[in-house]
């Protein structure tokens, strides 16, 4: 997608720390550039909303942006929200340089099912690609064959591929 370096920032992952390496391995060929993992220097607790028991994703994006230049992808297991919605799977700056994904509601066990690590990784890759697509200015795509398709249920994520459709791919400004 871009030859520039992508900074992957894992935080609040608890028992899911082991997902970072395979996530980076899956992202690297799709992004066409370097991917590096850097621990955060910010304090996610500052984005905690006590009344909702969730983390404000907009505030977390702001903290990530203050950490330095370049595109950054936050990866967390914290439950994220934006003020008007009950939850989000992730958030990104449209046409910006920060994206954030949470695996909190991607876990099968959140829906009363058995843990499925392979499925969780698939979902995480798709959500990461989706949010990174937003940072490149892509909006939601109606195509069933595109990772930019909007997903408001976790089952929606399972139906889409982890790649951009030809139309969205062509719109990426600095694709390689």
């Amino acid at each position, binding site marked *: 997608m871009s030859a520039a370096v992508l900074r992957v920032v894992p935080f609040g992952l608890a028992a899911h720390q082991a997902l970072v390496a395979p996530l980076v391995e899956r992202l690297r060929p799709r992004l066409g550039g370097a991917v590096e993992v850097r621990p955060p220097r910010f304090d996610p607790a500052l984005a905690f909303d006590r009344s*909702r028991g969730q983390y404000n994703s*907009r505030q977390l994006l702001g903290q990530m942006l203050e950490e330095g230049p370049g595109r950054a992808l936050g990866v967390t297991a914290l439950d994220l*929200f*934006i*003020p*008007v*919605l*009950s*939850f*989000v799977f992730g*958030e*990104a700056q*449209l046409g910006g340089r920060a994206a954030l994904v949470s695996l909190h509601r991607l876990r099968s066990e959140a829906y009363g099912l058995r843990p499925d690590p392979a499925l969780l990784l698939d979902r995480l890759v798709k959500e990461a690609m989706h949010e990174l697509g*937003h940072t490149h200015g892509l*909006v*939601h795509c*109606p195509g*069933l*064959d595109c990772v930019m*398709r*909007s997903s*408001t*249920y976790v*089952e*929606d994520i*399972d*139906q889409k591929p982890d790649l951009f459709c030809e139309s969205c791919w062509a719109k990426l400004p600095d694709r390689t």
Partner: protein
Amino acid sequence: MSVKQGSILVVDDEFSMRDSLTQWFREDGHDVVPAESGEEALRRLGERAFDVALLDIKMPGMDGMELLERIRRTHPETRIIMITAFAAVDTAVAALKHGARDYVTKPVDPDELSQVVARAIEDAQAAREVAAEPGRREAALADPIVGQSPAIQTMRALIAQVARTDATVLICGESGTGKELVARAIHGASARKHFSLISVNCGALSESLLESELFGHEKGAFTGAQYRRKGKLEMADGGTLFLDEVATLTTKSQIDLLRVLETKEFTRLGGSQTVAVDFRVLCATNENLEQLVRERRFREDLYYRINVFCIETPPLRERKSDIPLLADHCIRTMGQKLGTRVTGLGPGALDRLVAHSWPGNVRELANAIERAMIVASGTRIEAGDLVLGGTEPADPAAGESLVEMEHQHIRRILEQSQWNISQAARVLKVDRATLYSKIKRYGLHR
């Protein structure tokens, strides 16, 4: 979900709400303009048109209710959705009575918000398309029926006669004969024409879904019912309720419907408060209801309640003199959609259309014309462009493989549910994942 892109005015004095709404809808590709007060919102509306305005109810200065009234007066084309905190739900209900299209309670479920706004955008854009041609809406509502044959003239006279009254009408006829058009014609010529015509396809919904669809539900009424939703009965208040495929109602649904028709009152699922409504009822069926009554599959009391006045839609084989007019109408309406150069029929083509028996009626004719317009190489449909016979057999199962039947059934249910995947999956009794994979396998799209 896939949505039609539109223009949205977001009005909220609280920056975090305004900002999160703006960003959320921009990711869908909508053209979003934020405003931090009612005064700024009116200025923005003075500069340009919006499909949808999302209004926070509680704002300093001009609050959401006052802004709602002002927008309704000055920009009736803009659909208004109120945003409210849970504690102000009563105010949101009052807003609905004053013309708001819908309301959401924050924090709202992402799917709920997307669907509410998508529906409002579609509604606004459809209304604008119709308004673009003065008089077209009135004409379309008053007489959407094409044809001059004696059978159609008789039906028109009956429609005009019954439209003046508030009587319940039963519209009977074979599939594809235009029963819904008759319902639209009755509503459009009635005193209720300035209110909504709400259609419910009883055959497309399971018993529990139909119940929820008709009566609406309170928050927590059943698993997944996170918010209160208005039912079709409430939406039809003041207007007309059209119940298609009424013969498919289950025994329980028949009892529920009879009670509502008798009392014009109902209770939302999970609720205790009685809601009073005033609507006219039109029903349609392609089955012999009298026979179903004799077989005790349809309640006799409900039959007499809905069969106050009966209109029969004639099959196309009994009005073949209308085929040239109908074909011309199809070519004009489909031309833009298909982007073809076809403007008419060659003489040989018309002969073939008139000679065919049309077991699938006008729907079959429209399909045949559409298919021919796609394959036609010139500006006219020629005889060889038409594929007739077996295109839509009277018995839809005849000659079709199991795979083809599944393909067509899924397509039909998706169309009936307007591509609401969750709703279609419930009707088909499969999970959404299965439905998505079948959509992909059959290459279905909107």
